[in-house]
Each structure stands twice: as structure tokens, then as C-alpha cells.
């Protein structure tokens, strides 16, 4: 077995072992944190019955819509900001300011504007993702090596050719960083929205239900599920990123 595979398995096993040991030595209050087996049983029950799948799907769909819209609009505006210096000067401070506002403080405004249905959750995911994608795309353009554009210009390329064939690709690695950070934000905000606003379906909604009904084993099972969901999304993104920008770190 390769050493990194051993590491990947050993890490989580060690966490579970410490958790179990803490229980065996009565260091934890079972009503606050049940033992690992109880939580794993609850998780298995949720997954094997398929009862949680509509929730996962619902969270994924809303999150994906907000994230995808933020990606399309954010990359477009970010590239423009990076390309047009006066536009950069005029907008970068504003974008940075809005990015710095924790999106949760804007929750009342989103509820007032979009209600408590899907739209407000999608809008909040969009807001949380948009600014980080925009700024990273803009920085990608601004930090792209000038030599390549100079080279293409010398060979007679038009400004549009230089943008399409060079600057866009040079900006991609930084854009991907923005998209990756935004993916984590999107999941956090989507689950928070479900918890705060309520929703028929969604991982956040199930967390709130478990908490209010004191189903602590289900609560921890859902926390682990949300963690696994985020972990898998991140791994999927890394897989995708390596195919989009394979030249980075080579």
C-alpha cells in the first residue's frame, strides 16, 4: 500500500480512535457527543434508507445554481476589471468592500428582497461566491506575464487574439483559485441559509430538525455527512482543476 494511501486512511481512523477513547474514559458527555458507533449507525441508517438523498440533492441544486451564476458573472466582470485599467480603478475598492462584508449580516436584506424560498438562498450563495471569483479573475489578468502578450503582439496578434489565446489562459490558474475558495463559501452559505430561513429539504434543514428534536446522533451524522459532502466537492474540483490548468506547478 502506498504511504499516502495509508496516511489518508490512518488520519480519520486516528480521529475515531481518540473519540472512542474519550468515551471509554468517560471524558465526554454522551448527551452532547455520542460515541462513534452510535453516530455511524445513524449515518448508515440515513444513507441506506435513502431518506437523506433528497436533502443532499436539494442542497446541491440550490448551491450549484448560485455558484454557477456567480462563476459566469464573476469571471466575466473580473476579466473586464483586469483588462480595463480605469474600470479596475473604479471598481476594485467597491468589490473589495462588498467582499469583506460577511454575507450572513445581509441575511435580512435577502429575506426582504427574495422571501424565504429558493431564490433568497440562491441569491445569498451567489453573493458569497461572486466577489471572490471576480477579484481572483481580475488579479489573474493583472498578474499575467507581460512577455507572452508582448510576444504575440510582435508576431502581429490583435488585442482580441491576445486576450483569447493568451491573457485568458494566463488568468486561469488564479481564476481557479477563486472558484475553489468560492465553492467552500457556497456550501457554507447554502447550509446556513437552510438552517436560518428553513426549507422543505436540505442538509441544513435536517440539521436544525435534529437539533430542535434533540436527535443528537442524527445531528452528528448530518455534520459528518456535510463534511463528507464538502470534502468530495473539493476533491472533485481539484480533479477538474488539474485537467483545466495542467501546466501549473509543472
Amino acid at each position, binding site marked *: 500500500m502506498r504511504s499516502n494511501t495509508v496516511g489518508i486512511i490512518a488520519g480519520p481512523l486516528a480521529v475515531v480512535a481518540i473519540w472512542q477513547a474519550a468515551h471509554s474514559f468517560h471524558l465526554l458527555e454522551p448527551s452532547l457527543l455520542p460515541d462513534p458507533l452510535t453516530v455511524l449507525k445513524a449515518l448508515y441508517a440515513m444513507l441506506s434508507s435513502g431518506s437523506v438523498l433528497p436533502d443532499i440533492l436539494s442542497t446541491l441544486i440550490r448551491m450549484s445554481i448560485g455558484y454557477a451564476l456567480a462563476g459566469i458573472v464573476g469571471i466575466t466582470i473580473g476579466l473586464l476589471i483586469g483588462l480595463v485599467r480605469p474600470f479596475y480603478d473604479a471598481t476594485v475598492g467597491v468589490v473589495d468592500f462588498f467582499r469583506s462584508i460577511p454575507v450572513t449580516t445581509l441575511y435580512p436584506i435577502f429575506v426582504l428582497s427574495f422571501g424565504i424560498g429558493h431564490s433568497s438562498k440562491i441569491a445569498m450563495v451567489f453573493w458569497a461566491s461572486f466577489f471572490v471569483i471576480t477579484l481572483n479573475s481580475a488579479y489573474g489578468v493583472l498578474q499575467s*506575464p507581460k*512577455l*507572452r502578450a*508582448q*510576444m*504575440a503582439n*510582435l*508576431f*502581429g*496578434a490583435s488585442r482580441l*487574439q491576445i486576450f483569447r*489565446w*493568451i491573457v485568458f*489562459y494566463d488568468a*486561469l490558474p488564479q481564476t481557479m483559485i477563486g472558484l475553489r475558495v468560492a465553492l467552500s463559501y457556497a456550501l457554507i452559505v447554502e447550509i446556513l441559509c437552510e438552517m436560518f430561513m428553513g426549507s422543505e429539504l436540505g442538509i441544513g434543514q435536517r440539521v436544525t430538525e435534529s437539533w430542535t428534536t434533540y436527535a443528537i446522533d442524527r445531528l452528528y451524522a448530518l455534520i459528518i455527512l456535510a463534511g463528507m459532502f464538502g470534502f468530495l466537492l473539493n476533491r472533485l474540483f481539484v480533479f477538474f482543476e488539474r485537467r483545466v*490548468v*495542467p*501546466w501549473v506547478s*509543472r
Partner: protein
Amino acid sequence: MTKISLTDVSKSYPSPAGGSKAVLSSLSLEIPNPLFTTIIGPNGCGKTTLLNLIAGIVKPDSGIVRIESVNGFNPRVGYVWQDYRASLLPWLDVAENIALPLRIQGVSRDTRREVAKQILSEFNSSIDINQKIYQLSGGQQQLVSILRSAVAKPDMLLYDEPLSALDQPTSWSMAFRIEQVWMARKVPAIFVSHDVDEAAMLADQILLMSRDGKIKSVIENDLPRPRNVKMLSAREHLSARDHVIEFLSEEGALRDQSAKELTQFPNTLK
């Protein structure tokens, strides 16, 4: 035929201490077709600026840079940069990098790939056209860059210290590739270098640039072509390099140790 002439050209850049620093002042120069010209001089004397003025990358503050070619006054430039990694496009394969100037001219993908294949075989390279740039060694990457400069039938070939980032054996191999490309294209080549042997070996004429941005003298090298490493001990080469070393010493561009090493037999042959 391409004729390169500079008349009374001056160029200065903003100085970090404020004001401006003159890099070239009232420089006049003619480079006849199809000579191989190398430019050597102390750091900061304006070698790259001179090359970039000829390429049209920078504009002179005063004076005229005139390039007459078969394409009128809008010549096709083949340029090879020292930082080949930053000048190649890592998201494209070898064929698309070599043929980038053709893509810019609107040549179809199939033709571009065919031309890239041909030029690699013309210069006896076994690089696979489908490989990505980051899969190549440094020398292979610079070769791609050298072939890219020649692919679109340029009116002149310009080289800005293209070998300085390579190890010595690769550097000599690339130097003779450059000569091979230049001989095939029959256009003027201007090669900026800081390496005495490299500058002397490749050149028909060596321009010695002083710190004040002027051409102090021109040294001829009549060695037959194609040249090879064995010619490093030829009388013509040794005479040319002695002149260059003497000039660089006068300019204070050589540290004592470097001067001592250079006045001995060329390192490559030891």
C-alpha cells in the same frame, strides 16, 4: 532583402532616483542583409533596448529606426527571448507553439501542424509535436522558441540572450541550431549576448557597446560556415574573442578572475 538602419537614435528610461537615465544616445547603425551580428557590452549598456527598438517593441525618444524588407516597412520579426518559459504557451502543445505566428496570420490548424512537423524535421529534431511544453526539457523548450521565431518567414531574426538560461553543452548545441536556422532563412540576425565565446563564434560581425550606449567598434569574424565547437581554437575566433575581452576589460565589465579565465584557452575545450 532586409535593411536595418538606425539614425541618431536616443532612448532613455525613468530613473528610480527620479528624472531619466539615457540608455542610448545618438546611436547610428546599419546592419546589412544577411549578416549575423552579435552585440556584446557591459550590463545596462542598452543591448536589449537596441534589440527592442529594432523589433519595434519600444519606440525611440528621437531618431529614426528604419527597417526595409520585402514586406515594406512593416517587417515580420522573429524574436527569441532569454526567458523561454515565460514566452511559450504551456497550455498549447509543441506544434501550436511553433506555429503560433501562423495561427495569428489565420493559417488553418491542419496546415499549422504540418508546418510545425516539417520545421522540426528540417532541423533534425525528434520532439513530438503533440507534447505539451511543460513535458520538454529546457533545451527543447528553447528550441521550440527558436523554431517559432523562424516559422513565418521572418524578415529578421532577433535573439535576446537566448542561451544564458541553458547549461553549457545545451547552450552550444542551441547556438549552432540558431546558426542553422539563420542560414536557412538568409535574413539579418542580431544576437545579444554576455558570453564572449558565444558572441565571437556565431558572429560575422561583433558590435561592442560601451556603457554610454554607443557602438565603440565592430569586429569581423570570417570563419567559414557552418561553424562548430572545434572552431573555438581557430585563429579567427581567438583573435575576435581577444578583442572582445580587451574591450570588456577596458569597460570594467570583467571581474579580475573572469578576465584571467577568459584570457586562457576557451573553457569548453579544456
